[in-house]
């Protein structure tokens, strides 16, 4: 069968299956299980309404349990075991021996792990701060001009590009050619134009981390801008006018009246980007693959799990990432719920 047809068929089956599930299960509930008829009509309606939410939640709960909750537990188990081939068994047959925290200890001894931790920490400091700051700036500036919406679309567009696609674009920006050839990377073109020698930017230690971070900042600024722009528009215009009457200049209005009023939104944006940063993988994988001291935790995990086939240490590093993400996630959810109240 033609792949496009296969795709269409899959979509039709998937969507049709969902519709059929909800329709039929509700029909079963209302017609067979608790029909709103007879002497117990009122009681039956109440019971049906108590069960109905679970019909709707059920599929999602099962899917999340199977693909999210179970893997977490399994990863935790793997991180505490060592995988060894069964003596005399078939290839691909493994024993899992409990080794306690040995995997974690081994990971702690590796300089590459600490390099990843250090880099992740730098990413954590730089990317959310820059993305939020640029997003706030773009939101404020584009709200006041006529072509603001066009500018906003341009700034938002990178959000629509995959991380790998963005990496390819930025690899071209950082591209380096021998000195006697014309530079096709814009950074080198500028650098050479200013009288420098062509640099292989992605191999310059420490700095190369920042060159990678810019890619994510470029992507996330649009997200920050859209959310913060909506928040800025939600500020009552009269508070701004009151500040004008009080004699505040545009900077004071922005920093003392507007920003404090959208503080919670700024924090939500900041933490959301922080979560993205902690999981950053594709950009590093596609651009440097962790070479030249640009390793990050997610890429380190990938290396261990799928290149070195060291399931123990790989799982241990996955647990480390999860431990780092969890408090921010909890705080973020708590904050978002408070915002909604």
């Amino acid at each position, binding site marked *: 069968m033609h792949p496009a047809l296969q795709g269409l068929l899959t979509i039709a089956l998937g969507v049709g299956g969902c519709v059929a599930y909800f329709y039929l299960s509700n029909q079963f509930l209302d017609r067979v299980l608790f029909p709103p008829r007879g002497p117990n009509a009122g009681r039956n309606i109440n019971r049906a309404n108590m069960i109905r939410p679970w019909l709707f939640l059920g599929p999602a709960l099962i899917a999340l349990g199977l693909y999210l909750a179970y893997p977490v537990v399994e990863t935790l188990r793997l991180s505490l075991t060592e995988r060894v081939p069964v003596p005399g068994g078939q290839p691909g047959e493994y024993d899992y021996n409990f080794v306690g925290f040995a995997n974690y200890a081994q990971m702690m001894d590796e300089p590459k792990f600490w390099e990843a931790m250090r880099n992740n920490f730098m990413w954590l400091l730089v990317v959310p701060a820059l993305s939020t700051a640029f997003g706030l700036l773009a939101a404020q500036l584009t709200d006041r001009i006529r072509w603001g919406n066009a500018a906003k679309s341009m700034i938002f567009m990178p959000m629509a590009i995959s991380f790998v696609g963005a990496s390819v674009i930025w690899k071209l920006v950082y591209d380096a050619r021998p000195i006697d050839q014309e530079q096709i990377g814009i950074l080198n073109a500028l650098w050479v134009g200013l009288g420098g020698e062509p640099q292989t930017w992605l191999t310059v230690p420490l700095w190369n981390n920042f060159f990678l971070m810019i890619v994510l900042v470029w992507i996330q600024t649009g997200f920050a801008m859209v959310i913060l722009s909506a928040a800025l528009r939600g500020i009552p215009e009269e508070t701004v006018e*009151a500040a004008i009457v009080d*004699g505040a200049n545009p900077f004071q209005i922005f920093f003392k009246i507007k920003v404090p009023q959208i503080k919670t939104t700024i924090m939500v944006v900041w933490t959301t980007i922080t979560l993205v940063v902690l999981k950053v993988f594709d950009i590093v994988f596609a651009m440097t693959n962790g070479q030249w001291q640009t390793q990050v935790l997610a890429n380190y995990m990938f290396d261990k799990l799928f290149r070195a086939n060291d399931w123990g240490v790989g799982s241990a590093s996955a647990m480390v990432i999860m431990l780092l993400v969890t408090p921010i996630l909890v705080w973020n959810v708590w904050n978002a719920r408070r915002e909604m109240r």
Partner: protein
Amino acid sequence: MASLTLTNIRKSYGPVEVLHDINLEIEKGELVVFVGPSGCGKSTLLRMIAGLEQITGGTLEIEGTVMNDVPPSQRGIAMVFQSYALYPHMTVRDNMAFGMKIAKASKAEIEERVSAAAEILQLTPLLDRLPKALSGGQRQRVAIGRAIVRDPKVFLFDEPLSNLDAGLRVATRIEIAQLKEQLPESTMIYVTHDQVEAMTLASRIVVLNGGYVEQVGPPLELYERPANVFVAKFIGSPAMNVFAATIDATGAATTATLETGGQVHIPVESRAEDAGTAAHFGVRPEDLVLAEGDAEVLFEGTVEIVEGLGEVTQVYFKEKAGESAVVAKLPGIRAFKRGDRLKLAAAPEKLHLFDAKGRSFLYRNG
């Protein structure tokens, strides 16, 4: 010297002119109320005085200085907004101190002015609260306190009571009246669409309609001697009964025939050339009484609707089917029924006469 002078003030949005040639002088210590229906331009005029809207034409002077292009903060004004416009992230104290902090006043001075304003408005126990922990009335007081701290030459109030519930509105209205007593030197401009607020607070009322000033004067003058039909109908509730009429006899008193047939004698001067012209005759519902003895009967008709309010009884009746209803507001509780025949009269000095264009005969000159 006038505290505030508007000369030929105009405002346009593109080709649309919304305020036309406004001239007004406000003396120091006055409380002037701008009143008018929605869209009459009263808020726009206030915002032009505040400096939040550009003045298209004419001059605005505050204490003799032209202020057209002076930024709001340097005009010597303070504004109280309809939605209070408190800074939600600042305590009451910081809200009131913000302007002075921006102006880099000394801490001692800020503290002194804020406590003084808080004292006047009984806000002292609330100084460290955030606006969200205050009731509507308290928020409004903080907004007024923020204005007082600025120590302005002119206070501007933009419908400050519209967001309060009915009971609180009366209480806050009285507080504003008391505040005015405590600050006799300060000039206040107050915008509202509520004629009760206008009548009770104002030393003078400016009635605006469609971007024009209809009449300026003390509240009771507007009530007793309205300059035109618009003011006559806008001030007072229910609105004045106004009918088309034709002038019969002129002189020191005027005789007119109503379109409904009756003839009225109005002690208002008219000229010989007015005889035979169309005019409008008006009488307030509360000035109508049941005709007794040989009093001149103004209206005779059949009761359509009776609204008993206890304090007064409002009677809507028609002289003939299809005509506009006449409203009478009679004191006390009356046992009228639908279909009752009523004869109504009014004291001659309570009758109003307007020309065909709706201008009062009282204000004709030259």
